[in-house]
């Protein structure tokens, strides 16, 4: 028989059992607006607070490494485009320099300069997307379209020089695919003049917005040693105050000739290594990239930049780990050659993969909205995480 709730005498009145609560397991993704692709995060939450967050990856695995073992050295380059599809130039560069170092190839000066220019332009384009989508994650729509307006101008420049707008296949072994068309240099300089004042516009609408600062400062702090241990690199690591930029610390191409600063997070709005710092490093890095572009274009030598190496190259047997600084961090290609016309092994050390792995360490204890802010501040591209 069901017991009545009303006690028969007042002495039977007992303290009611406390409300039963339990953890809720939610799947965030693979279709979720702010996982930046097909990332799935399994959340265990207590109300709005997250107890654990486990990323599940692999939804975009396209067997890059297996493909690379079955095609020629040159044919791999278009595949590298598709790793981090919003910074394709930087991906080309890392792979190509790796091969050039194994072959001990010299690249002509003009091509080196063009490579730096397109890589830095692509860095700006990529950071712009990072900024815009980060605004979306926090709930601000308008900055997203501002940055796309400006990224469009970079894509136009790329279209002119490489014929493509997203996947360029531009940097080839021994040089670049096409020389810059007439007037391209001036157009890039024009873009630099146009772009620099725009950074102030982004700062006005987003960076120094009170609500934006409230949402991002002191959130998702990655201490420097945790970041290094998890292999976090690029702007995400520099946001934690670590002065480490491969363009300075392990120079490749002709980066050692340029004068630019390495931007590090200073904890201006909160703690060093919070999401605001990571965001700010990207904003400031665009300024530095513009500086590099100007210097590279100033000294752009005349001549033909087109690559002079035959298409069917054979890389001498050996192995090399080439790492470059892409917008997301340290992109490494571990290339093993057995002397044939196809690679024996191409392993990609993807920066987004390592950056994402830190999520499980910093997520416990934050709110769902903060998790979105953290994922956005790591600036992952799922094409590169899953390869």
């Amino acid at each position, binding site marked *: 028989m069901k017991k009545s709730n009303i006690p028969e005498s007042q002495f039977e009145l007992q303290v009611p059992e406390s409300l039963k609560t339990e953890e*809720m397991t*939610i799947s965030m993704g693979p279709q*979720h*607006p*702010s996982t930046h692709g097909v990332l799935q995060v399994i959340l265990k939450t207590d109300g*709005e607070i997250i107890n654990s967050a486990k990323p599940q990856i692999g939804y975009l695995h396209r067997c890059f490494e297996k493909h690379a073992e079955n095609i020629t050295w040159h044919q791999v380059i278009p595949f590298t485009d598709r790793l981090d599809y919003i910074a394709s130039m930087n991906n080309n560069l890392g792979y190509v320099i790796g091969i050039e170092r194994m072959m001990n190839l010299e690249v002509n000066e003009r091509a080196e300069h063009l490579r730096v220019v397109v890589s830095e332009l692509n860095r700006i384009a990529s950071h712009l997307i990072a900024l815009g989508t980060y*605004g*979306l*994650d*926090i*709930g*601000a*729509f*308008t900055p997203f*379209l*501002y940055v796309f*307006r400006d990224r469009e101008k970079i894509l136009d420049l790329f279209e002119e020089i490489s014929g493509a707008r997203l996947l360029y296949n531009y940097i080839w072994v021994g040089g670049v695919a096409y020389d810059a068309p007439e007037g391209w240099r001036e157009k890039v300089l024009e873009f630099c003049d146009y772009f620099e004042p725009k950074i102030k516009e982004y700062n006005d*609408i*987003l960076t120094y*917005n009170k*609500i*934006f600062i*409230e*949402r991002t400062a002191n959130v998702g702090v990655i201490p420097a040693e945790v970041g290094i241990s998890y292999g976090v690199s690029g702007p995400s690591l520099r946001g934690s105050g670590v002065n480490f930029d491969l363009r300075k610390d392990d120079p490749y191409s002709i980066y050692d000739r340029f004068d630019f600063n390495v931007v590090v997070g200073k904890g201006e709005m909160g703690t060093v290594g919070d999401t605001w710092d990571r965001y700010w490093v990207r904003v400031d890095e665009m300024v530095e990239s513009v500086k590099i572009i100007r210097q590279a274009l100033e000294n752009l030598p005349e001549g033909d930049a087109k690559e002079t190496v035959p298409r069917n190259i054979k890389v001498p047997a050996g192995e090399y780990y080439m790492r470059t600084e892409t917008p997301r961090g340290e992109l490494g290609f571990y290339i093993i050659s057995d002397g044939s016309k196809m690679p024996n092994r191409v392993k990609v050390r993807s920066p987004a993969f390592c950056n994402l792995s830190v999520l499980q360490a910093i997520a416990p204890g934050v*709110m*769902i*909205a*903060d998790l*979105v802010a953290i994922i956005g501040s790591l600036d992952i591209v799922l094409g590169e995480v899953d390869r």
Partner: protein
Amino acid sequence: MEPLFQFFNNLFPFISDWPEWLAHTVVGVVTVLLLFGFVALFALFAIWLERKISAHMQDRLGPMEVGGWHGWAQPIADAIKLLVKEDIIPAMADRTLFKLAPVIVFTAALAGFAVLPWSQDFIPADLNVGLLYILSVSSFAVIGLLMGGWASNNKWSLYGAMRAASQMISYEIPVALALLAVIMNAGTMSMRHLVIAQSGNILDWNVFNFFPLTAVAFFIYFVASLAEVNRTPFDLPEGESELVGGFHTEYSSMRFAFFFLGEYANMYIVSAIATTVFLGGWLAPFEALNFIPGPIWFVGKAMTLVFIQMWLRWTLPRLRVDQLMYTCWKVLTPFSFAIILLIGLWKVL
């Protein structure tokens, strides 16, 4: 509905010849249809306006094709699309509640229109507790949101619903307190008399009364009302970057349209309350402008506030849940109490 009846009587004198029951029924039905038409038209216009405003703020054009001039017919096309779309109810949803939720939200919004004073005479129901009525009716909507989120049987929807409930209930307090500051002085809760008490020129409006105390109350009301109608920066219940779509994640077609309609109707209602209570309702700012009819002033002022809501939406990011509650309980509520206290003191002295 005495004033309303008189209004119609003046307009069409033959009504007085009809039997009373018929006249009242006809007037009532016509008014409801008028209001419903206004809500639908307003929603269509506001959607178009919002798209154009957002587009121009974001350096693009927005809809330009449908209907010719600046895509004016785009919302009509959207509405038709929503009406003919397949109505999907998730398999594991609580069907009854799922269907009921949008109806409640929309009804609550529409019921609020009953006491809005469009002009001196045209007010559907001049209740002596009009303001109280509108506050109570609009807080009814939260039940609809909670129902929708719960019935969807989706965890994200549930999050949205819970956020909606906690947010809307919390923010009713600063809303009510801010309005109380004015009621205290005016001594009436009838929407019509509140406006009549402000007659004169622009300086007699309540917002300039006890300067700057009521102006602050107006600001508090406006901020809190944004949260009441789930607009950015307080759009947490929908927060698409966190909760996918919040309480209406699982809704589609017609039912989604009703949520949407309810949201826009609510935007208008909170603006209309602000207009009535703080900005002199249908009154012209200067005597010289009295030739422009009252309803135009009323709608114009309300639309200005609606525009500001849209402006904020496309400028500001979203707050976090704890910051939202902080803003309500530790900023807006104490300040509105302080204002009530200060106005009280001012009056006594």
